[in-house]
């Protein structure tokens, strides 16, 4: 692939299970592509240099900063954003736990944190508090002091483990 600096490229990706495509200049970040070109505004853009974690999405199942990735780099990949947690009328288990434990206040960082937690719980189904805090070190939240977030993640992990044990 060879694109001139002002040449628009049609990037196609699988966004939350649906094939979506739109045009992007080489310099367009994935986060801006999602918000401005595809209208998926659930992903928030904070620092734009990879520190705050607000823009975290899953690319091919792994949590990454969408401000540190170009839209053209995501061409052909699977991208999941906070909208993927939507289960119609109800919120997901993780979102409900966030509400129960007051794991958010202003909510700006939450979209990114939910995506990191979602991936984390699939990779580490029975985490220790230390592991949860290590995963959260990639996010900044200025409201909660993180305690509620840690409790919400441990709560979901505990519930899932209990359900697993009951069924076996």
């Amino acid at each position: 692939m060879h694109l001139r600096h002002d040449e628009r490229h049609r990037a196609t990706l699988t966004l939350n299970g649906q094939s979506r495509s739109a045009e992007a200049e080489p310099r367009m970040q994935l986060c801006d592509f999602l918000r401005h070109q595809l209208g998926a505004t659930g992903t928030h853009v904070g620092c734009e240099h990879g520190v705050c974690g607000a823009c975290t999405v899953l690319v091919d199942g792994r949590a990454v900063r969408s401000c540190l990735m170009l839209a053209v780099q995501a061409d052909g990949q699977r991208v999941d954003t906070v909208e993927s947690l939507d289960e119609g009328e109800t919120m997901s288990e993780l979102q409900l736990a966030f509400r129960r434990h007051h794991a958010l206040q202003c909510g700006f960082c939450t979209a990114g944190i939910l995506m990191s937690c979602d991936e984390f719980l699939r990779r580490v189904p029975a985490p220790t508090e230390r592991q949860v805090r290590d995963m959260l070190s990639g996010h900044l939240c200025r409201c909660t002091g993180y305690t509620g977030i840690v409790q919400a993640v441990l709560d979901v992990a505990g519930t899932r483990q209990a359900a697993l044990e009951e069924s076996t």
Partner: protein
Amino acid sequence: MKPAAFAYRRPQSRREAVQQLLDAGEDARVIAGGQSLMAVLNMRLSQPSTLIDISAVDELRYIERREDHLAVGAATTQAELLEYAELPDAVPLVHEVLPWVGHVQTRNRGTVCGSIAHADPSAELPLCLATLGGEVVLETRRGKTRHVSGETFFQGVLTTARRSDELITEVRFPLARSGHRYRFTEVAMRHGDFAIVALAADISDQRIRLGVGGVADRPVVREFAPDDDLDASLNELAWSLGAEDDAHATAAYRRHLVRELGRRLIAPNEIEEIADASTT
């Protein structure tokens, strides 16, 4: 902020990547995971004419355990290396260090070679490469390669021995040797942040190699003999690094950390322990 405009090329092979680098001239930059470069571009600290994205070059995505070293290809991510089952046995220092490199969300895309190419003086992977005496493999026109040792590759803040027509194709970490102990410690504002001071050590009963990151403009490695006066050697090392005050720490605090953390890494009783183990 948003990056300034650049042309974008995505080669499919190593050969194509090198050729594009030659064609694009001195203003081109290579991007793989982009976890350092994208931040630099977003802040417009760098405004390259062309980005050459090697993340789709499958032949640069490998981890190979060879006779005396572990080779890591330029498109291999930090997460992939951390998940490599043989890593704790092959290069224990890198296994211990990788969880300190950024956060899980940046390790998922950030590459091992990219961190070394970026050459931040407080980054952990350059420190490991220099301390272990590893090397960087560079490729230029007509498949010509050059090997540069970890200690000479880093030449200053974000400055390396790479020439503008060379592509870093792999880095090589020497395999762990029996009777050696590998240790690492770091002080940072938060886990995952860049180090205020980071120390890595390769300790045997013959000699101690101690690497310091975060103080000088590049990782600095010193060798001591086990019977050297450790306090005097560490003090001399701490002063030799030209520490400066900045927003995170004073020069005096950095010198203090080099002495104190150095002492903890190379505790005299540990040297005796290793000597005992090797005689029994």
